[in-house]
């Protein structure tokens, strides 16, 4: 792998202060940290196909308020090892082990998108380790379940066909600008310079101006989950710690388009909801506003 010769900066972005790893049954998970080592700990989780360095702007804002921010690359993402099995319970176990690597008795769990749901579920499993939960647009609306009724077997077969071709699969390399353009199409409310920055910290350079996202091509949306859609909002109800549900007001993929009416009934006794006028990528669109909201919540 060629060392990156591209140094692309972005306003407010700062490299992590520390890097380490955690083993999950032999699988190495890359962990990065910002902020003082003796600060109040925050475990910060990313969404699907993202990586810990997507928080290069958001995490330093928390760290500036004295928090020790610990973020990890989920298996198959960023600099963590690729795995044979990608499953919800594997991600939960990995998150539990990263949490266990933080020595403080209680840790605030802050997750975006899939990690919002993941850390909310984890909080229900290890309540003795959790001080607060912040779920950033990672909730499934209790009123409008997006999982279709029945099973689409063509999608199942497509997933299986993809598994049979794993040996031949690799993410298509492209120039920095091309990769940035692809990402920008999903996050078009953000400047393209943000996508260019993310390429330099989340992709590997495989040739002269040739880059490839590090995420494992074996990770594909699952065709079928043996899970009922009402389970996801119910995980909110199980949380005993103070919980902040941040809902993105502007609908659109890859968000789940949760609404206050759909989430409200599931908020626990110490839960509250805040709606921000953003799309799904809240930590990247409004990092300062979100950081202020989270810092205020964690300090309350």
């Amino acid at each position, binding site marked *: 792998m060629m060392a990156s010769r591209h140094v692309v900066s972005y306003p407010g972005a700062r490299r992590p202060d520390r890097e380490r790893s955690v083993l999950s049954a032999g699988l190495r998970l890359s962990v990065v940290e910002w902020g003082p080592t003796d600060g109040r700990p925050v475990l910060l989780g990313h969404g699907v196909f993202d990586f810990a360095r997507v928080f290069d702007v958001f995490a330093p804002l928390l760290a500036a308020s004295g928090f020790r921010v610990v973020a990890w690359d989920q298996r198959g993402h960023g600099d963590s090892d690729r795995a*044979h099995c990608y499953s919800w319970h594997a*991600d939960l176990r990995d998150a539990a082990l990263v949490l*266990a690597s933080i020595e403080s008795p209680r840790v605030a769990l802050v997750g975006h998108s899939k990690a919002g749901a993941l850390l909310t579920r984890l909080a229900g499993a*290890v309540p003795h380790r959790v001080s607060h939960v912040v779920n950033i647009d990672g909730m499934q609306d209790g009123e409008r379940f997006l999982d279709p009724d029945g099973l689409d077997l063509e999608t199942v077969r497509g997933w299986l066909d993809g598994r049979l071709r794993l040996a031949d699969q690799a993410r298509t390399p492209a120039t920095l600008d091309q990769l940035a353009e692809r990402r920008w199409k999903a996050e078009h409310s953000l400047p393209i310079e943000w996508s260019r920055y993310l390429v330099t910290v989340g992709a590997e350079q495989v040739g002269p101006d040739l880059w490839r996202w590090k995420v494992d091509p074996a990770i594909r949306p699952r065709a079928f989950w043996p*899970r009922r859609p009402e389970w996801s909002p119910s995980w909110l109800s199980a949380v005993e710690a103070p919980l902040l549900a941040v809902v993105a007001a502007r609908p659109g993929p890859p968000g789940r388009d949760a609404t206050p009416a759909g989430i409200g009934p599931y908020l626990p006794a110490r839960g509250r909801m805040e709606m921000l006028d953003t799309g799904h990528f809240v930590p990247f669109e409004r990092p300062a506003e979100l950081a202020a909201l989270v810092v205020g919540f964690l300090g309350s």
Partner: protein
Amino acid sequence: MSARLLRHGEVGLALHPLRDVPAGGHRLLLLHGLGERSPSRVPEWAATWTGGVWALDFAGHGGSDIAVGGGYDPEILLADADAALAEIGRAAVAGRGVGAYVALLLAGARPALISGAVLMDGPGLAGGGPEQVSLDMTSAPAESSGATPDPLALAELTRDVRPPALACDFAQAARGPILVAAKERPSWVRAILEIGAAQETTLAMAIDKLEVAR
């Protein structure tokens, strides 16, 4: 006969040829139970099968590789079995325990390639039941044992959710007969029988029915 090693994702899977396929013959794929490994010879209950017999070691079991980091679920085992099916071609499938559940999934996912399925008693038949289970995060291991059966597989495949409705969807998609020889009846097995997508049989009769269906 020595095992064939298939590559599936990050693991090598051991696929054992137990009996050669006669010219123009048909095949039977055996899927073992949780914590087990493939038999070393054709089981007695399958002695009357006239075609070739293969047996697959799931990831984390027998001669197959451990999935480093775990994360096992029946859907990954389904993909393991699908890799074996791609190797041997159209076959009947017979599964024990968790292998029975995978046999059902395979029959529904690849109806043109599975001529029939037998579901038998064995470890892991029930899984974690039809509802989500409370999480146990206190025993999360940091290191892998390095030996099969992988303890993570043993733990994770006793806690996976098996909704009866999902089993019914797969059973109804199958083209060949789904034959239940199992005496244990977890909710997913009861469900596929109740909707008429599967039929009860004995193990001895199951092989005869598979011969007819091939």
